[in-house]
């Protein structure tokens, strides 16, 4: 087992990893930017190293500084968290070259699955249903039109190097396809330094269902069931739950087994989430794999009782997944609300600022994952997510009641947050029936 790990991240996930390290008896070294120097979680680490000014490019994305920090702190492994360098295969390679274990997949597997076109190929060869689409990268607009007409409109144009819901454009006919193609190309170049595009059939009103998988270095892979992340705003998840309320057992089993086949086909190691779209007829289609631990991992932890971060560390240290699939049992219902420093009244505009009052909720079945405290500052330089509120109860109705109660108790002042938006969603009759799709927020909440 490692004796010392460096956490190349910040905020709530850094704190999450510090906790897992300390429970495993591992020393946690955290890097921080000048914007985070007064954060309390930094003080919980065994060692903290300042790596730069606030902007991520000069701190949390700065590979030389992070590797230098790992060297002077003499760590054996680096946990990249999510976002930042978590899916940067080049970073994973540098760690390997420097003799530092990267707590995540090997760079080759990360690349294989990180390239969306390649991932679709792998899915096909693993007999995993994919959204009908282009077999490879689309060279130009003429090819785009051919493919779009073959698949049938509407279509969605996506960046091969993209993910996280960015760099995507929908087109309903040949005319709008031209504009959408050019725009998607430009956005992909800008956001991912790679303009490669592919096309998929655009499923209207799908649900988003994803499967949590872990794979060890001995080629054992296990799934930890699914999460339903249909409640999204502009492709950013806001509320997640497990299990998916509309899946029957047979479909659940097929879905989870399909995810495992893909992960094994890719020779993947460590944590991954395989994402699917579910249409109204309960057909599922693979869209992408996230080759990292995800924000919403606590939802799975609550319903299965497994600590996914500890598993990530153990796997990276060479431990086997000493479980059988049938030992992983799913119990009750868990919900998570992402609390973002955003003002729902002003189109979710980000609200940075200093927190003057912070009182998280408690009680049975309530878990709060956050780095926030009174006196700390929400910086404009980073993601606006400031807390995750997770509840776990025996039934979905009870979980919704507990979540609403907990959201009402939660006091974060003076900034605006997405708490009122979450309350509105949880009170909506369509959400309660779970008659929802990914357009829910835009269409039904206005």
């Amino acid at each position, binding site marked *: 087992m490692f004796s010392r790990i460096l956490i190349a991240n910040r905020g709530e996930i850094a704190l999450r990893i510090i906790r897992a390290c300390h429970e495993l008896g591992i020393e946690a070294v955290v890097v921080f930017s*000048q914007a985070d120097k007064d954060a309390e979680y930094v003080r919980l680490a065994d060692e903290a*190293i300042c790596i730069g000014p606030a902007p991520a490019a000069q*701190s949390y994305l700065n590979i030389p500084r992070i590797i230098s*920090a790992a*060297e*002077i702190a003499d760590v054996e492994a680096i946990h990249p968290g999510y976002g930042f360098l978590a899916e940067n295969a080049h970073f994973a390679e540098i760690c390997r070259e*420097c003799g530092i274990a990267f707590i995540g997949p090997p760079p080759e597997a990360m690349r294989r699955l990180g390239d969306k076109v390649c991932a679709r190929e792998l899915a096909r060869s693993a007999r995993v249903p994919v959204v009908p689409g282009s077999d490879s990268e689309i060279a130009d607009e003429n090819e785009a039109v051919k493919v779009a007409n073959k698949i049938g409109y509407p279509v969605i144009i996506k960046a091969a190097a993209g993910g996280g819901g960015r760099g995507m454009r929908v087109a309903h006919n040949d005319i709008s396809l031209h504009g959408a193609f050019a725009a998607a190309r430009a956005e992909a170049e800008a956001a991912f330094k790679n303009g490669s595009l592919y096309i998929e059939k655009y499923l209207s009103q799908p649900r988003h269902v994803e499967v949590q998988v872990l794979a060890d270095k001995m080629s054992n892979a296990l799934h930890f069931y699914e999460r339903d992340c249909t409640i999204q705003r502009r492709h950013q998840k806001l509320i997640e739950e497990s299990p998916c309320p509309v899946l029957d057992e047979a479909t659940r089993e097929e879905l989870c087994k399909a995810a495992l086949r893909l992960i094994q086909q890719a020779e993947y190691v460590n944590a991954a989430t395989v994402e699917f779209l579910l249409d109204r007829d309960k057909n599922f289609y693979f869209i992408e794999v996230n080759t990292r631990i995800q924000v919403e991992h606590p939802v799975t932890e609550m319903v299965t009782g497994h600590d996914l971060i500890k598993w990530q560390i153990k796997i990276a240290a060479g431990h086997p997944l000493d479980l059988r699939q049938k030992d992983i049992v799913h119990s009750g219902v868990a919900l998570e609300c992402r609390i973002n420093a955003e003002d729902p009244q002003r189109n979710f505009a980000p609200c940075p600022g200093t927190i003057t009052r912070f009182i998280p909720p408690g009680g049975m079945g309530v878990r709060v994952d956050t780095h926030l405290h009174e006196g700390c500052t929400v910086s404009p330089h980073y993601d606006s997510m400031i807390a995750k509120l997770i509840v776990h109860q025996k039934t979905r109705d009870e979980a919704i009641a507990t979540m609403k109660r907990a959201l009402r108790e939660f006091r974060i002042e003076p900034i605006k947050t997405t708490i009122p938006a979450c309350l509105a969603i949880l009170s909506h009759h369509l959400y309660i029936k779970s008659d929802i799709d990914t357009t829910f927020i835009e269409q039904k909440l206005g």
Partner: protein
Amino acid sequence: MADKREDLKRVKELIDLMIKNDLVEIEVVEGDSKILLKRPQAMAPVVTQIPMAPVTGLAAAAPAGPRGAEPEKLQEINSPIVGTFYAAPSPDSKPYVRPGSHVDEDTVVCLIEAMKVMNEIKAQMNGTIVEVLCKAGQAVEFGQPLFRVRPD
């Protein structure tokens, strides 16, 4: 004469040994002869480019002594990167600067080693070194004060 040729051969052998093993110093004593060879620190190429050294925040002034003198307005030279501090170009050279040394913007004040590369850190100010805040081999983080300087 033969001896001299032997000596030269021996020296050449030692030089090869040093280069092959990346040594900076080797001393061989055989009987009553001694050969001492030194070469400049070879493994770490010296780089002169540092992106954006964060200039000096205003330092806490040196504490006023019992003489009750007013504290001076000193400035600090802070580390622009993460790495290991070295005060001198090599283990047995003189340090780049000491208290009392005058520096200008381009004066190299120390080296910081990061990922096997030696980075020359420049003063980026005109003044006199008052205090050296780090020891050779010390790990430094971004923004860590390295020197206190009395600006001109």
